[in-house]
């Protein structure tokens, strides 16, 4: 590439960097604009909230049912959490091996913004409640009214108040299955009751022909089928234009209501929002102070190339912060520390290059050759050194819980991007200067330390 080529590339990098900087800055300002859709994603320790870890007892479950039951469990928990109106809750299930090598289920729940955990824990821990309910008299009146002004279908509000319990619950259910209508191919949900349930269900259907029966799960209706005839076989079919996915989910929920996986709390963690805000503010301050001192050191010790390294470092920072927003990476206090740490690591490649460059300047007369050799000969130690750091970051990612994963991820992204900025970007900047002849003045500008 010619000097003009390098200058154009350097200018493009500059413009790109400024655009990224604007993106990072503008997307943090509260507004309804498109950019505001890319905020930093803060972890629980910064936003405040609750992290709950449960053991799910799957020892009695046959292996083939495990994933279905887990999915059902997750659905039930998600439904219960939704009652709280938590934004972006996390519900995860995973299977571990305990010390004896037996599988052990885990349920991880994260509730951002929730710090009053007492109620949440009680609600989550309760056995799912499946109930069959029939219409109240009031409901009949409302429906009569609705039928009068037919055509204007008003949605029924608070369905909970319009149904009354019958005494038939999940305890009476032996299993639920999914079947498909042989004619229409639509999915059906088949419920099987035990003896007592059979009697109760027969009575309920007999008394309510032409009305709806509602099946409530954890206090909210999941389906309200019409009763067409009295059912005495102890088996009920629910038809209702389900998608196969919904039907499968429903069967899972019903089975969970009948046979939940018992869960027990293993650990709780709550972080108040004030602590999180403080951590963000302090993390920002530490980052700025760290950046300033590293920049100062680089400029004082490495002079002209040091200054260019600081320019690349700034480019590196806006690039990484943009990546954090776009991927998005969940930032934790440790993750922010990882990012700040990566500022210190990012200039290391430059230090190796500049030291090498100085040596090359002693050996050769041509400026360009010295620069090329400096970069290419420093590459091996940069590669080896950074690869070991990435190795340990990958292991960290495996080792860690959420907080540590955040650190490992920010560090890895930092190391990879910094190699790019230190090697490619800094080289383009140095080349763009077009230093030309090797004069004493330039050698001293490219020098370092006390000499």
């Amino acid at each position: 590439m010619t000097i003009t080529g390098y200058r154009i590339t350097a200018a493009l990098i500059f413009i790109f960097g400024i655009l990224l900087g604007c993106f990072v800055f503008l997307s943090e300002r509260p507004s309804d604009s498109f950019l505001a859709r890319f905020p930093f994603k803060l972890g629980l320790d910064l936003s405040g909230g609750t992290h709950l870890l449960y053991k799910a007892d799957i020892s009695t479950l046959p292996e083939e049912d495990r994933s279905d039951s887990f999915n059902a469990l997750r659905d039930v928990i998600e439904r219960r959490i939704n009652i709280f109106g938590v934004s972006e809750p996390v519900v995860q299930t995973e299977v571990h091996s305990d010390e004896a090598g037996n599988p052990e289920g885990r349920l991880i729940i994260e509730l951002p913004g929730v710090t009053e955990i007492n109620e949440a824990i009680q609600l989550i821990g309760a056995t799912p409640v499946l109930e069959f309910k029939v219409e109240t008299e009031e409901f009949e009146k409302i429906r009569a009214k609705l039928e009068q002004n037919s055509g204007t279908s008003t949605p029924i509000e608070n369905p909970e108040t319009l149904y009354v319990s019958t005494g038939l619950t999940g305890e009476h259910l032996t299993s639920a299955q999914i079947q498909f209508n042989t004619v229409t191919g639509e999915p059906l949900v088949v419920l099987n009751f035990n003896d007592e349930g059979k009697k109760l269900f027969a009575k309920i259907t007999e008394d309510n022909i032409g009305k709806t029966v509602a099946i409530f799960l954890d206090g909210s209706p999941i389906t309200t089928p019409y009763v067409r005839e009295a059912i005495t076989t102890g088996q009920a079919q629910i038809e209702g234009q389900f998608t196969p996915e919904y039907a499968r989910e429903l069967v899972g929920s019903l089975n969970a209501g009948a046979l939940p996986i018992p869960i027990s709390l293993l650990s709780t963690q709550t972080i108040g929002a004030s602590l999180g805000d403080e951590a963000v503010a302090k993390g920002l301050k530490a980052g700025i102070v760290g950046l300033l001192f590293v920049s100062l050191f680089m400029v004082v010790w490495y002079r002209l190339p040091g200054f260019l390294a600081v320019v690349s470092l700034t480019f590196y920072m806006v690039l990484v912060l943009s990546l954090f927003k776009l991927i998005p990476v969940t930032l934790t206090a440790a993750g922010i520390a990882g990012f700040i740490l990566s500022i210190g690591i990012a200039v290391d490649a430059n230090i190796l290059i500049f030291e090498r460059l100085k040596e090359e300047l002693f050996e050769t007369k041509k400026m360009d050759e010295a620069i090329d050799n400096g970069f290419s000969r420093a590459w091996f130690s940069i590669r080896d050194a950074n690869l070991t750091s990435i190795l340990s970051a990958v292991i960290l990612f495996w080792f860690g819980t959420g907080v540590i994963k955040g650190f490992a991820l920010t560090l890895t992204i930092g190391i990879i991007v910094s190699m790019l900025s230190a090697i490619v970007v800094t080289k383009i900047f140095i080349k763009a200067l077009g230093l030309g002849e090797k004069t004493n003045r330039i050698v001293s500008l490219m020098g370092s330390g006390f000499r």
Partner: protein
Amino acid sequence: MYILHYRKFFYIISGALVAGSFLAILMWGIPLGIDFKGGSLLEIEYVNTRPDIQIIKSRIASLDLGNVLIQETGERGILLRAKEITEEVHQEVLVTLSDKGKEPISEKRFTSIGPVIGKELQEKALISIVLVVILIIVYIAFTFRHVSKPINSWTYGLIAVLALVHDVTIPTGVFAFLGKFSTGEVDTLFVTALLTILGLSVNDSIVVFDRIRENLRLRIGKTFEETVGISLRQTITRSINTSLTIIIVLFAIYFFGPESTKHFSLVLIIGLIVGAYSSIFIASPLLVDIAKRLKK
């Protein structure tokens, strides 16, 4: 090269530091945090004024929590550590601390971890550290595979790792000391810091080894000792400076960063300082000694 000349002296310093660390760990034990041993931690802040710590202690004593540690934090806060407690007990503790709501409090954080998780994490931590160490030996042995005289590439890997053991033992020893006489805990973040030290501090050793490799190829230096000495002199500035920039940002995190990463940055600072020291003053001189022993 003066470093090689006085290497016995540096071995003694490092030997003493490592021995002292082991002694500290044996005498006082590793102060495990609650994420490793299970237990609970509660931090609250009194909205108005904090009652006398003795009063708080006597109130808490009425609950059956076993051994409870209560510390004052900030102007109005307290930090309470106890065994693992259930949510009901947690609520009881909050009511007791606020004297049934008469002295309003705000909860800053609460953690309760069962012993099962702790055990699992301890195992995982050990596996991670061992795995990183093995991977580093293998990686160095691989990238230095063309080097065979006077010592083979596996020896470079082993020596780099010996330096790493030195680098993680000393911070652990310091924390055993801190755990006994001040506040310091070996928690998940501590292990994270150790793993990061492993990855970072080997960098300095690699830079020197890389230069030794190059100088061996160019036949610089009459003896191996001379080659190592020249390589050390050529790379010492960059070894120090690369560690220095990282230590600068770590100090920024330590002094200005959030409370939760203070100890974390301290471990890293100690680890990187002893790491830079061991790469320069221990790892490379050891190469010379091993080469000499092999010659005999």
